[in-house]
């Protein structure tokens, strides 16, 4: 059995086969509290979140240790991904129509919300380590949606016993060698047919995350938009990949790298993943063909 709850606009599951149902339920409450706290602090859709207050602030903003740590980590991801991961896409997301929590058809509209915002870079956001003060350039809106679900899954996973998993709508941390000692079975959904599995992976003591443009989609006029913004164009990304799944030692890392792989496309993503230690990927093209890259193991291989 699995305990589930909703958080961050997705279904979160806690799987702990070694625990009895009462222990599993108690663990799930603690995991739910971690997600709840994270959502309260980091959601750009909640006007009362600390991130929203930072985005509204017109003066230097003194961040809590948690928000400051998240921003510091985001800056590290910006550097590691050559700027392809960039949390300053917040204004571009709003301009593209993603101005409220997603639900099917809710974001559909006939005209754009606002013009595409001017270029911005997260490295221009000043982070003062001594005072935890954050200074945003004018007009920059920070969105941590590209990493915060993975970040929260990693924090929740620290509560798990050996051989347990937390799965936040496809961003999952899988602890230990799995309930049978042979690894966890991870089905990768087919991006062109959600009812099918394109490949089943064997994953031990690592995390997985998947990015695709097949779910969070909406219509602006005759144009279809999605939530994966390319920071180079400030527009929903156009790429030869339909989906990127990344396996790495943490969910935040997998989350960020899956988005970056999707944005940069098959060739660049393959080159990037192959250079990284402890990282693997399943890249699925628009033609539905899957390619395994880096350190990845198929269940029946």
């Amino acid at each position, binding site marked *: *059995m*699995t*305990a*589930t*709850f*909703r*958080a961050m606009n*997705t*279904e979160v*599951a*806690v*799987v702990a*086969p070694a625990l009895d*149902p009462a222990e*599993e*339920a108690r663990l*799930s*409450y603690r*995991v*739910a*509290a971690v*997600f*709840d706290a994270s959502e*309260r602090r980091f959601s750009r859709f909640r006007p009362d979140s600390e991130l929203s207050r930072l985005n509204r602030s017109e003066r230097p903003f003194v961040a809590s240790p948690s928000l400051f740590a998240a921003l510091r980590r985001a800056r590290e991801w910006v550097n590691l991904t050559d700027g392809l991961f960039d949390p300053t896409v917040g204004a571009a997301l709003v301009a593209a129509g993603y101005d409220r929590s997603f639900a099917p058809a809710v974001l559909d509209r006939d005209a754009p919300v606002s013009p595409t915002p001017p270029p911005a870079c997260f490295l221009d956001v000043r982070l003062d380590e001594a005072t935890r003060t954050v200074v945003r350039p004018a007009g920059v809106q920070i969105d941590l949606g590209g990493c915060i*679900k993975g970040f929260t899954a990693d924090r929740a996973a620290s509560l798990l016993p050996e051989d347990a*998993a937390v*799965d*936040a*709508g*496809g*961003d*999952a941390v*899988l602890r230990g060698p*799995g*309930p*049978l000692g*042979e690894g*966890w*079975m*991870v*089905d*990768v*959904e087919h*991006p062109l047919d*959600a009812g099918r*599995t394109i490949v*089943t992976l064997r*994953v031990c003591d690592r995390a*997985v*995350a*998947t*990015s*695709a443009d*097949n*779910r*969070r989609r909406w219509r602006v006029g005759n144009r279809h938009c999605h939530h994966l913004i390319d920071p180079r164009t400030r527009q929903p990304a156009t790429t030869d990949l339909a*989906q990127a*799944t990344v396996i790495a030692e943490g969910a935040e890392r997998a989350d960020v790298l899956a988005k970056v792989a999707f944005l940069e496309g098959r060739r660049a993503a393959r080159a990037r993943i192959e250079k990284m230690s402890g990282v693997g990927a399943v890249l699925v093209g628009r033609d539905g063909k899957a390619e395994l890259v880096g350190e990845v193991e198929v*269940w*029946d291989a």
Partner: protein
Amino acid sequence: MTTDCADKRPRSGARHTTVLDLEGAELKLSLATLLGLVYLGSFLALAPPPPQAPRASAATTPSSKTASGTSSRAPRIRTRSS
């Protein structure tokens, strides 16, 4: 004490006074109720809602046969964009 709409309509001076008293009592009651509701409302607005209670489910797939043909009841994880 109950009254209907017809009783509340003033037809004479004495009757009018009685009706005003009744309405005054009702007004006090309504104010007290309103104040109570405002207090309760402000409390509820300030109090953080509890995280959604987890529920047990079979969301992960307890497969009877794995991809490699091994029989098991092991849970499977499904990764997808969300």
